[in-house]
Each structure stands twice: as structure tokens, then as C-alpha cells.
């Protein structure tokens, strides 16, 4: 197991290197000149060249790449072209909102979706099943921002239970922290509830017809125990895979949700950096997201051994 983990960790290096090369080249090929953006409307060509030189953008691309790569290896993510802040400062400042939003979203999604999926499987073909599957279709179909605006209209504007926008840090009080996150987390969780509930239903349906379920029932075990101890545990591997993919997909989902709710997280930072062509920030965020993606996949693979002891690495 340990050697497997080590092998997987080592495999991260070429993955990240490939990502680094790709993102670096794509940014340089994308139209947009940070120096021209910084210089503004009145700038002369010479002023733009001066700024480009200051930013190191006049050097050959290969040279720029190796300087950046060398810095990354030394743990230096560089400095933003725009903010007088290091990329690490910017990213670390945005971690808490994004992590909190992602965590709360996944908690809501798992807590709501798995019981719904199990219930839909157990009540297959009934109105309960149809409602759950109907919700699932809606959850997939309605864009996050539409759900967000509906939630804001009802719960923030009409009822006044939650703020319209903004984020309060955990250190400033858990009440305000939760208050600022509940609507965004519910908004973002809808699609994951749909995804996980659907997968749970399918997986549980598959195992409900197995012999060991019949045996459990024959032994007189309660339906709750049959469903959650026997059926769900054996259906857990595909569900864990979907949850893992869901966590990875959250990276994309937070961009829209953070924009709708004005949460200063990594998603918003990414959008702002892309719009401003802030190369060092974009490069660092994409590398960080890639690392998280790879690590989550590793964790999901390792979780299989817990759900299914037959799986060994």
C-alpha cells in the first residue's frame, strides 16, 4: 500500500510538469497583453514596452518559462503583475472562503443525496422515486446562477434571512460565517445532490437484488439496516467515485457561485486573473488546482480499500 501511494505521489511530478508547460504556453498564445492593460489609454508605445520589460515579458518565452519553473521548484510562485502582492499571499488569502464553501457544499450534498438515492432505490417506481429523479433532472438542467438568483430573491431579499452577498471569515464569528455561506453552499450543492442521488439510486438498485440482501432480510433484519449496512456499503465504490469527481468539479462550480454571491475565493481570483491576463496568478492557480485534482483522485482510490476489502494495492 505504501509503495503504491509513493508511486502515485511520484507520478504527480510529470503530471504537474505537463500542466505547467501547457498552461504557460497557452497563456502566451492567448491574445492579451498585461502591459497594455496596465499602461492605460494614454500610454505611448514606449511606455508599454517599458512596462513589458519590467514584467519580464520581453524575454524569449523559453527563458521566461525556465525562470518561472526554477522559481516554482524553489517554492516561489512569483508576484502578481497587478497587485503589489505575491501570488502566494493572494492564493492563501482566498483559500479559506473557497475551502469553506466547497466543504459545506459537499457536506450538504452527501448528507442530502445519499439518503435520497437510497430512498429512491428502495421505493423504485413509486411517486417518491419519481420526485427524487425529477429533482435530479432539474438539478442537472438548471444553471447554478439561476438557482443562486432564485435563492437570493426568496431567502435574502423577500425573507431577509441571509445576506444578499459577501463572505464573513470564520475568525469573525461562526454565526456570520455560516450565514454568509449557507445560501451559496445550497446553491452549489444542488447539482451534486442530483449527481450523487442518481448514482446512489443506481448502485443501490443493483445490489438490492443480490442474494446477500435476500439473506439479510430472511434473517429478519430491519429494512434500515438492510439498506444502509448491507446495500449501501456494497454500493459505495461507484458512489465514492462520483463524490470524488464531484469534489474535483467543484473547482469549476465555485467560480460561478463565488461570482454570484461575491465571495472572495479562488474561483473569483481565477476569473479576475484571466480577465487581467495576470499570468503568474493564473499559472499558480491552475497548478494548485491540478495538484488538488490529482490528490483527490488518489484519496478516492484509497477509499475503495475501505469500502471493499477485496481491493488491494
Amino acid at each position, binding site marked *: 500500500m505504501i509503495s503504491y501511494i509513493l508511486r502515485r505521489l511520484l507520478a504527480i511530478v510529470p503530471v504537474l510538469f505537463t500542466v505547467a508547460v501547457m498552461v504557460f504556453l497557452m497563456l502566451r498564445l492567448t491574445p*492579451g497583453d498585461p502591459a497594455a492593460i496596465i499602461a492605460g489609454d494614454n500610454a505611448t508605445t514606449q511606455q*508599454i514596452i517599458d512596462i513589458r520589460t519590467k514584467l519580464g515579458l520581453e524575454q524569449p518565452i523559453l527563458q521566461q518559462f525556465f525562470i518561472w519553473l526554477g522559481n516554482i521548484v524553489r517554492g516561489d510562485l512569483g508576484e502578481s503583475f497587478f497587485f503589489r502582492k505575491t501570488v502566494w499571499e493572494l492564493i492563501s488569502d482566498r483559500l479559506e472562503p473557497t475551502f469553506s464553501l466547497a466543504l459545506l457544499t459537499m457536506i450538504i450534498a452527501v448528507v442530502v443525496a445519499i439518503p435520497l438515492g437510497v430512498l429512491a432505490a428502495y421505493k423504485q417506481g413509486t411517486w417518491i422515486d419519481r420526485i427524487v429523479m425529477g429533482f435530479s433532472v432539474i438539478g442537472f438542467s438548471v444553471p447554478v446562477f439561476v438557482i443562486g438568483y432564485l435563492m437570493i430573491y426568496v431567502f435574502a431579499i423577500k425573507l431577509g434571512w441571509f*445576506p444578499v452577498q459577501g463572505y464573513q471569515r470564520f475568525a469573525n464569528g461562526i454565526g456570520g460565517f455560516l450565514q454568509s455561506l449557507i445560501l451559496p453552499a445550497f446553491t452549489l450543492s444542488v447539482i451534486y445532490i442530483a449527481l450523487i442521488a442518481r448514482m446512489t439510486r443506481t448502485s443501490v438498485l443493483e445490489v438490492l437484488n443480490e442474494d446477500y440482501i435476500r439473506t439479510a432480510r430472511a434473517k429478519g433484519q430491519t429494512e434500515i439496516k438492510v439498506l444502509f449496512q448491507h446495500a449501501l456499503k456494497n454500493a459505495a465504490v461507484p458512489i465514492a467515485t462520483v463524490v470524488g469527481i464531484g469534489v474535483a468539479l467543484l473547482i469549476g462550480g465555485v467560480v460561478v457561485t463565488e461570482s454570484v454571491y461575491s465571495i472572495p475565493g479562488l474561483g473569483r481570483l481565477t476569473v479576475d486573473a484571466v480577465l487581467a491576463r495576470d499570468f503568474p496568478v493564473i499559472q499558480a492557480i491552475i497548478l494548485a488546482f491540478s495538484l488538488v485534482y490529482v490528490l483527490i483522485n488518489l484519496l478516492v482510490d484509497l477509499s475503495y480499500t475501505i469500502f471493499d476489502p477485496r481491493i488491494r494495492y
Partner: protein
Amino acid sequence: MSSVKLSRRTVVAGAAAAAGALSATSQASAQGAANVLRVVMHSDLRIVDPIWTTAYIVRNHGYMIYDTLFAMDAQGQIKPQMVDTFTESADKLTYSFTLRDGLLWHDNKPVTAEDCVASIKRWSARDPLGQTVMGFVAEMTAKDARTFEIKLKEPTGLLIFALGKPSSNVPFMMPKRVADTDPNTQISEFIGSGPFVFQRDEWRPGDKAVYTKFAGYKPRPEPASSLAGGKVVKVDRVEWRVITDQQQAVNALLAGEVDIIEAPSHDLLPLIKADRSIKIFNWNPLGNQYTMRFNHTTAPFNSQKVRQAALYALNQEDFLKATIGDAEYYKVCKAMFVCGSPLETLAGMEDKLESNFAKSKQLLQEAGYKGEPVVLLHSTDLQVLTNLAPVAKELLQKGGFTVDMQSMDWQTVVARRVKRDPPTQGGWSAMLTSWVSADILNPVMAGFFNSSGDKAAFGWPTDPEIEALRARFARASTAAEQKQIAEAVQRRVAENPTHVHLGQWYLPGATRPNISGWLAAPAPVFWNIEKARA
């Protein structure tokens, strides 16, 4: 062992109590913020050096934390601000400035004449008007702690105006150690002598920028008037909140989560007006001006007659209707130096901008235009610009042009417009943008009039006659002389267009009912504003 039985009623009551508690927390937080002004600005503050960039959000930041030697008042007059008194020698070659007593930097050290000289030098290295004025300057010397002198090689009527110019780049005063920073490098210390202190530790790009009242600021005794007069701060703290979604900003204003929106988009103004408690205030009476810029270095706009044809084919009303819509917020104005300004004139423009397509076609024929496509850059992501290019395309086509409109985001337009390649190789022929009117009040400060070829802004027009007139304007020492030359410049630009001005437009701000004292000025300023308890 005890057990808790949850009835439906208990759950509903619990949820209501939790919601009530959360709502109470929200209200308490709003009440606690009574003397905090929460403002949604038009953009996020990313760069904090107002000399390094001309971005308006950075200029606005500059007005918070820095002060200026002179400033423009509500009548458009330039008045002393940090300067107490100044003298001009009889030969108009020597100016002596004495600073007001008691001016302090935010670290409570006194503002000195040396600081001001260094600040003027750094500003003039970046600002086009500053560069022009420095061409007249022989020497700048600090005479003592509060007095400095500027000696000119020849007289200019622009020196005082330049030192009090209201918009980007504004000559903000900084401590010498900061002002000595290379003009092409961002400053790293944000200390001014203005009415607010920038709280760098609380600055979270993408979230908020925070300013607190500077206890050591000594306002002028006169009442505040636009950017001049007594800058009396009446709140403890100003927070610029970043809400990128305009609809959400309006929702936050209606819900009382923010106090002011600097520039809500035009399509949301009816929603704001529907709430009668919200006040709408046009804080920038000079407004903005739409402009189409030609690329003079490549066909077809390297031909004077072709540019003239465009000037005849276009009209302002169509652009303004398509982008602003409500006539309350726009004005058809053929004056290049802005309607309502001292240099307003119709000279040379009487028959232009009337969509005279027959005249346009005739000029194209005279120019020998062979249908070379006008590569028109279309910005798609900024609401106030998006509809401009399609209107331009339609009108130019009706005027006999072939138009290839290419759509892209604004930042790509910004990168593309500085490319001098032919349109077929990633270059361009024309693009549309908007200026804050305060940036185009005369032919020297307005960048698009610069016709010095390679040294001009993108578009690179070359016209020695315009340059001679601009030089004359810089030397003019009376308002009458300046007006006469401005008319001559306008006539020449109408004859040999460097760009086309496409009308004035306004974007008012919106405030909660308990906010008062917002001053009309070319930039949004937050002194004089009071926030009563809601």
C-alpha cells in the same frame, strides 16, 4: 437514558428561531456599521499606484489617500489645495509656491517642498500633459521646507492647470522616498497626505479596500467644492466592496448591505428608481465621451479623405441610443472638448456627424477607396461599450465602407490596439472606447489629439499642423487665446480626423436614503459625505 422526540412543529420552530437569530446578527452588524460607508465601486482595486496607471479606479484611490497642490472646483476653476499661496513673476517665468502650514503625511511627518518637487517629477514622467509642461520647465527647486519654485524656459498657461488636473494621471503628492521610485515601477509604500489612510493590511483584492479617516488631516477652511475646498471627512471608515455582478450590487443596496453604488449600469437604473427611498445622483456632471479611434498607419484609414468619409457617415444619436438608451443619461454633443466646458465649440463640426451617406460615398470615391475592409474591434464584455461597434459597422457600411467587425473581450482589444501590424496580420483599422470627459478638456491633455506619429497613443496619427496648434495652446497664457486655439484644433481635426467623438453620456450613482453630502466632481470623492443612522 433520555430521548428527544422531534415533532414537525419543533423542527419548524427551531428553523424559524435559527433564521431569526441569523437575521438579528445581520441587523446588529448593519447597525454596528453606522459610521462605516460601504461603497461598491465600478471596479476592483488591483493596482495602487495612480502614477503608474491611468485606470480610473486607481485615480479614485489616489483621491482618497493623496492630496494635490491645486484642484478643480465645481465651476471648473483651478484653486490652491495643498498650496497656501503662490506667486507668478511679471515675465511669467518664475512661479513660487508655499505649502499650507500643518500638512502631514499619514506617518505624521510634515509634508515638505522637496516631497512635492519629487512628486511632480515622477508624475510628469508618465502623464502626457505633465510631459508637455515639463518641456517648459527649466528648473524646480525646494527653497525651504514649505516653499518651492518652478522656473520656466518660456511662459505657458498650462502649469497651474496641469498641477490641478482632475483626472488620470492626477499629480498626487507623495513623500520623496516614495516619489523617487522609478516611474515605470509600482510604488510599494502607500502613504499620502490626503483625508483618508489606506489600510493596507485590510486590502483584499477581489474583496475590499479599506480607508480610515486621517486624524491629522487639516482641511482648507473653505467649503468643499468638487475636488477643491475643505475636504472634511464625516465618516470613520470607507470600505470599497467588490461586487462584480451589477444585479447583486443593486440587490445589496436595496437590502441595505451597501450604502452607495458608484456606477450602476443603465439597465438597472429603472429597478433602482422603483424603490423611492433610493437616491440617484449624477456625481460627474461632465460625464463621459464615446470615441472611435482610427489606425492611421494602415489602409483604409491612412487616407485623410477616408477618415473624413467616416466622420460624415457616423452620427452620435444612434450610438447613444444603442448603448445608453434613456435620453436622460446622454447628450448629443459635437464639441470635441466637451459640452459644458470652457472650450466647448462647434467649429468645423457643423455638417459632420449627421450620417450624410451620400457625402461619405463621394469622399470614398475621391479617395480611390477600393473596398479594403475596415477591421473594426468589437468589445463584447463591457456593457457600456458592447453596442458601439455594431452601430459603427452599420453606419459605415451605409456610408460605402466594407467592414469586418471582429468580436473579442475588452482586454484583447486593449492588447490588439497597440499592434501596428496590418489588419490581415492581427492589426486593426478602428476601435471604440470611452473617455471620462475630465480627461479631454483641452487639446494637450486629451491623448487622442496627440498627432506626433510614433510618439502618439495607439492609432499613431501624424499631423504637424495639429502638433503646432497643440504647442501654441501650451504657450497660450489667456483663456481667450486658449479658446481661439482650441477652435482651430477642432477645425483641423474635423478636416483631418484623428478620431471621432460620438457623444456624451452620464452614469449616476445610487445611495441609501440615509446618505447625504455626496459632491459632484470629475471623480467620485468621499469627503463631505454623511451617513445618518438608518
